[in-house]
């Protein structure tokens, strides 16, 4: 297989002193920022995206591979030690993880999370290497209508499957799509929604939107409700695992990986379902059922592995089709786009070296993460004690720096303030932010594909609907949309499951 050679070339590209240093910096910065309370992996990538603007794409992506896994791991540290997960995907980890920490087993919880993340990340990245080329072979035959269908599926998936209220999800998606329309229409040169402002003619940069909604919105929202009581941070020693902990952890790691990767790789995936499934599975299979609810190591090992494997899985549709299915993948897609590179099936032909270098650096970053995090865990835990005024002032500081760096114009900072207020309002009213971000990123692509499809069919509306692939995809969309109705019909009387 040529892929193996490509991957080895990728490793050769990463293993230069400069690039290894970049990967190391990425892992450290990613973990450090990810550990900070209130900052999840997606915000970590969004905040750190602008600092790579001066680098070449290869260097930037090597660093981002580190930031990606570092941010993921940092988030789980926070949820274990503080019990208030910043990301919905770490909710499950927090259940048993925090109880372990309270029972004086914080070190073991962090160790099983770190090693589990490493195992899941490595297997997940291996699967990524195996699966992505297959998806690419399939995706390369797709035409504009098929793409349009898949983007519609991604829209519906992030709004209707994740999150609790569909109408709020759709509201957020539409806001994102409208933001995506702002600017000059690429085909006709007409200005849309620019309010006559020349600075809006190029549209609003997605980085500014992401930083505004994730970082500024979050900082403002927390500022309005800042907890006056200091939260309890549990002290940790050196993470280690006893023989028995190993014996109890390794199977959950593998099972978690097996659950996480496929869910991540599906366009309707996400990490919430597999982490939850993994938790339920481990609770059923454990030989120590009495410990569940009081800090069972299996309950940390499984979901944490599922979380990381699903993160690796989300890179499959992101790289092969250009579809992000969670916020972090959306930010990685953005990292590509900011270099004028569009992920999708052609990526592997046009930017072969770049992709394989990225994949190789995912392996390297994952290893560095393990090597760093076991000894550094106590230091990361200290970061949780950072005084909150400094923490949120720092978020605003870095958000401003990043947004300014995009175009070097103060106008973006005003946009950032407006978007921050929008993010604040969305948090207040329970509108999910992911559909908005996905809408901004994919909306313009959807419009382009749709118009291309109509161009190919000479304006005939049937061109929009396309062929067999898009039929299947639209059938899925329809299924997701009518699922709540179906569930009512199919619903069997069942005990309400409690977690």
């Amino acid at each position, binding site marked *: 297989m040529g892929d193996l050679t490509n991957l080895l070339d990728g490793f050769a590209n990463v293993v230069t002193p400069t690039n290894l240093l970049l990967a190391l910096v990425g892992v450290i910065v990613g973990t450090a920022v990810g550990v900070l*309370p209130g900052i999840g992996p997606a915000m970590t990538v969004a905040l750190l995206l602008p*600092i790579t*603007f*001066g680098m070449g794409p290869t260097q930037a992506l090597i660093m981002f591979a580190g930031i990606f896994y570092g941010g993921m791991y940092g988030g789980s540290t*926070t949820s274990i030690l*503080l019990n*208030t997960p*910043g990301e919905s995907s770490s909710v499950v980890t927090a259940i048993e993880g925090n109880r372990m920490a309270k029972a004086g087993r914080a070190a073991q919880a962090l160790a099983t999370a770190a090693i589990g993340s490493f195992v899941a990340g490595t297997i997940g990245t291996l699967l990524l290497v195996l699966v992505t080329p297959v998806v690419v072979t399939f995706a390369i035959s797709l035409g504009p209508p098929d793409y349009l269908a898949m983007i519609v599926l991604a829209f519906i998936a992030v709004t209707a499957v994740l999150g609790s*209220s569909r*109408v*709020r999800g*759709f*509201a957020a998606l*539409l*806001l994102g*799509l*409208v933001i995506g*329309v702002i600017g000059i229409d690429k*085909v*006709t040169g*007409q200005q*849309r*929604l620019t309010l006559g402002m020349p600075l809006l003619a190029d549209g609003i940069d997605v980085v500014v939107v992401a930083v505004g909604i994730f970082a*500024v919105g979050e900082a403002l*929202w*927390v*500022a*309005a*409700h*800042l907890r006056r009581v200091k*939260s309890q941070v549990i002290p940790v020693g050196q993470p280690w695992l006893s023989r028995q902990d190993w014996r109890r952890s390794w199977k959950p790691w593998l099972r978690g990986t097996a659950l996480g990767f496929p869910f991540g790789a599906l366009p309707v995936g996400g990490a919430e379902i597999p982490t939850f499934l993994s938790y339920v599975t481990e609770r059923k299979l454990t030989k120590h059922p009495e410990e569940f609810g009081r800090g069972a190591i299996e309950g940390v090992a499984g979901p944490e592995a599922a979380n990381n494997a699903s993160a690796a899985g989300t890179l499959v549709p992101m790289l092969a089709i250009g579809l992000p299915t969670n916020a972090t993948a959306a930010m990685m897609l953005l990292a590509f786009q900011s270099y004028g590179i569009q992920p999708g099936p052609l990526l592997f032909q046009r930017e072969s070296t770049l992709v394989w270098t990225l994949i190789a650096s995912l392996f390297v970053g994952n290893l560095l993460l393990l090597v760093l995090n076991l000894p550094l865990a106590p230091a990361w835990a200290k970061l949780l004690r950072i005084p*909150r*005024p*400094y923490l*949120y*002032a*720092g978020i*605003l*500081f870095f958000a*401003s*720096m990043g947004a*300014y*760096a995009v175009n070097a114009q*103060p106008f973006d*900072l*005003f946009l*950032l*303030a407006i978007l921050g*207020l929008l993010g*604040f*309002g969305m*948090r*207040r*009213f329970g*509108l999910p932010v992911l559909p908005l971000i996905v809408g901004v990123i994919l909306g313009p692509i959807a*419009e382009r594909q749709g*118009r291309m499809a109509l*161009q190919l069919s*000479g*304006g005939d509306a049937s061109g929009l609907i396309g062929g067999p692939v898009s039929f299947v995809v639209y059938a899925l969309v329809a299924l997701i949309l009518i699922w709540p109705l179906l569930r009512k019909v199919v619903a069997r009387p069942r005990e309400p499951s409690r977690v």
Partner: protein
Amino acid sequence: MTSQQNTTERSEDRAQYGVCAFLALLGVAVIVDASRLGEVTSSNDPIGPRPVPIILGVLLLVVAVVYAVDVARGGRGEEEHGEDIDLNIPASWRTVALLVAVFVANALLIDWLGWVISGSLLFWGSAIVLGSRRYVTGLAIAIILSLVTFYAFAIGLGVSLPAGVLQGIL
């Protein structure tokens, strides 16, 4: 969980109608803007730039109505939880307004004063607004942070940050 009890006890959240109104107004604005566009179609582009915003505008209106119905039937969005968030205390609008003011001040001053000064003011001001009372420490951190970011990112990594009045000194 006390916070959940409070959520159910709190009376219905009427401010949500404001969100519906906002969505509806945005929908109308998007449609008006689109209808102002010239009818530009060609064989290359059979539909032109208008249909997409018009569809979005209509969908916004539909969502606004469905949302309003949901609110009328007692639906409410769940406010976001977080590590440092205490939803039991009423929102402090003063903090938010002051933060936005500090933020906008940075936007106004950044090109003139440069990132090192305006960024320091941004950090220091935000920290004070957020309740920090160690003014000197805060200022010291602010200055160190903006100097470090300026040298590391602007000079080291080629990120564009303005030097402003300190041009030539830094």
